[in-house]
């Protein structure tokens, strides 16, 4: 432990000095998108400190503030809201911060689930081949023939049917994670399978087999670390897609409940008022979603180029 601490500064220094970080610094797209992502994630994380109110707490809402435009004081209470207030008098800015928490949480958790399933199945499929491979990959193919949002809705519907009605709102988020996670394992599995098939024929894997190592140590100790860089890239891009998928589901009314609005729920609420002049309820959540998805996506794109040895 003491040794680990002693080594820590050296490791940070080495990371800052690495070619990877050097490339990062020289790419304005990477720096800007990373900064934007970082800013958004941090503001979601510290939402309770930044927000003026807790939008999930009905006691803090004042219906008299409903439909207050941005920056102008409310006609009834005199309160001012940076991005205005929605139909129930919730501060849009605060609601976005809290909504982003839900969107990001669902996104991260769903990608983690998809990654765990996909990487495991991809490794097994690629390493063993034969019937195992055929069965896993045909299931993946079948799933790919449906749009993933449709698959997510299907899983969401089935899972919802199994949850008791009184817990439905509380469990909605977990059901959302499950449905998005299960709908995007396929791309992880495919990429990892391909990379595994390349790696397993390399001589270091044969050397491990010669020593007498079994299949599991070889898969997880030798092959897994060598197929991780494409996984990292897909995970980043998947995060953007998962956030959008969550927003889409919530927009369609099958995702996060109105009492715990995510960005998608906010957009759904807002679009009802777009043509009656209360544009801010739709506009600010949409811009936030755009910024979040775009910056994560650009970061993933840069990561793909930076980690691809062919483009070096």
């Amino acid at each position, binding site marked *: 432990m003491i040794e680990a601490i002693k080594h820590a500064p050296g490791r940070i220094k080495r990371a800052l000095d690495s*070619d990877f970080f*050097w490339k990062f610094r020289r790419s304005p797209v990477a720096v800007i998108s990373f900064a934007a992502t970082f800013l958004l994630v941090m503001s979601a994380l510290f939402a309770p400190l930044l927000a003026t109110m807790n939008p999930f707490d009905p006691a803090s809402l004042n219906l008299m503030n409903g439909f207050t435009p941005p920056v102008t004081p409310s006609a009834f209470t005199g309160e001012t809201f940076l991005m205005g207030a929605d139909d129930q008098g919730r501060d849009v800015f605060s609601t976005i911060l809290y909504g982003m928490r839900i969107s990001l949480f669902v996104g991260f958790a769903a990608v983690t689930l998809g990654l765990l399933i996909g990487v495991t199945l991809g490794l097994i499929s690629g390493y063993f081949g034969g019937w195992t491979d055929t069965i896993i990959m045909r299931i993946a193919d079948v799933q790919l023939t449906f749009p993933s949002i449709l698959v997510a809705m299907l899983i969401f519907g089935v899972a919802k049917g199994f949850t008791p009605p009184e817990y439905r709102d509380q469990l909605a988020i977990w059901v959302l994670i499950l449905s998005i996670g299960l709908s995007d394992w396929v791309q992880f599995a495919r990429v990892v399978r391909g990379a595994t098939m390349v790696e397993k024929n*390399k*001589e*270091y894997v*044969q*050397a*491990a*087999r*010669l*020593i*007498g*190592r079994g299949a599991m140590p070889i898969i997880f100790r*030798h092959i897994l*670390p*060598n197929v991780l860089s494409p996984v990292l890239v897909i995970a980043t891009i998947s995060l953007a897609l998962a956030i959008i998928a969550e927003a889409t589901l919530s927009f369609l009314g099958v995702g996060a409940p109105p009492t715990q609005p995510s960005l998608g729920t906010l957009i759904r609420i807002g679009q009802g008022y777009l043509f009656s002049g209360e544009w801010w309820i739709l506009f600010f959540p949409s811009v936030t979603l755009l910024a979040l998805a775009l910056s994560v996506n650009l970061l993933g794109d840069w990561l793909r180029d930076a980690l691809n040895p062919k483009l070096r």
Partner: protein
Amino acid sequence: MALLNIRDLTVEFPTRRKVFKAVNAACLTVEPGEIHGLVGESGAGKSTIGAAVMGLLERPGHITGGTIAYREDEISGLDDEAMRKLRGRKISMIFQDPLTSLNPLFTIRQQLTETIIANLKVGKVDADARALALLQRVDIPDPETRLDQYPHQFSGGMRQRVVIALALCSEPEVIIADEPTTALDVAVQAQILELIRDLAVERQVGVILITHDMGVIADTTDRVTVMYDGSVVESGPTAQVLGQPEHDYTKSLIAAVPRPNRKVHRFPQVSYGGRMTSFAIEEIAKGWPVREAPEGALVSVAGVTKRFAEKGGLLPWQRRHFKAVDDVSFDIVPGEVFGVVGESGSGKSTIARVISGLYRADGGNIYFDGRLVSEPSDKEAIRAFRQDIQMIFQDPYSSLNPRMRVDDIVAEPIKHHGLLSGHAAKLRVGELLEQVGLGADAAAKYPHEFSGGQRQRISIARALATQPKFLICDEPTSALDVSIQAQILNILKDLQEHLGLTMLFISHDLPVVRQMCDRVAVMKQGRIVELQETEALFSDAKENYTRELLSLMPRMSDVSDEVQLPDY
């Protein structure tokens, strides 16, 4: 007047930390009809010169000094457009890999005529006739039919002939051939080199032949330029440079080339540039267990057959197989080095993998130390076998896990077999790394921080970790430079002599086999055609196929036998 005149060429690659000088003030001239060899080890800058002449330098590399002149015109300062015209028309290039130099989607006719029309401004009928004549010239049998075939229908050697025909389309005056025969078998290599030779004389084309192979240089070139670390160290007529080398580097390079015609006890170590690393064989021998040599054979291969699916299928009768190894039997006695030679596709690597257990045999048995090891039923025999055999692979870049630290790589066999644990294992790994000449501080590094030869030493350390009885070497040096090859082969010889290790040595390189092996099996299409004592095989081969293989070895008659090595 020289066709191509390169003066003081300097090429630099600015990288993050420093500017890397790939070529440093190199001079080179090519006359019409002359083959000028450019030889050096990897990283010497020989391919960079070729790329600079063609204007194909990969960014961020660029020419920072000197001139390249074609006849009287300087071409190094030309813009892309002017360079493109010259490149297609007057200077052509032949690359190493014939598979990727041809477009797989077009027939040979389409590729040849397109190039001819673009460069020579002739009509379609005329271009067609020229394409046919070119294929005939490069000795492709039945050229009318072959013209309408696709690249995948040609064998490797035939494909390289097509690539040469393609390079001749624009009637160039200079051809740059970058390792044109490295991917080919010896037999095919000899034919291709002869073709290049004939074409140079017949069409008065100047050829720059870039290669790492001294044998190719000796048999093919008129003049040779030796490069080391970006600089030209020696240049002159081939017979003179190889016969009476002047520079120390040339001397040590020539000394390291395995000779086809005689057996040496040890290879002279190339020590130029301070790359010599010691190998502490006595230390290893001290800790080595003394074992009773078993009676009879250590490894016994009995009627082994291995098939691979050529065409898969759901139903058994839809599948087609070819036999990579076909009813092969031989014994390896304790303490000997048993060689297997053959061309690519002869099944020599497959037999090594079957013996090691990486592939399961489809027929026949393998016995090790008298116990059957080709059936997984006897768990105890398999476990002991895994500890007693190890393998050294061909490619030092893929045989070490890039994400594992060197100490973990070397410790893996020790820990897996439960030989030592914890601190004792760590000490043992440090010792092993020290003994193979890497030093204990190599432990905390990753494989990419080492050169090819150093990686092969790490492989050797890993192979020695379980103190095996039997070592399989599958082309252990064919990916290495000659000077490194000499070091690694010496290490293997030492291991065999001092530890009494038994070895199976797979190679396509006959001179190396002659230096290393006690007995040699010659394989062809999955079968052993001849098995003899090494010296008997080289002096008095019984089979025609063996004699044919032997006749294709580079003769190296010009190469000086007695090079006085400088002392360091």
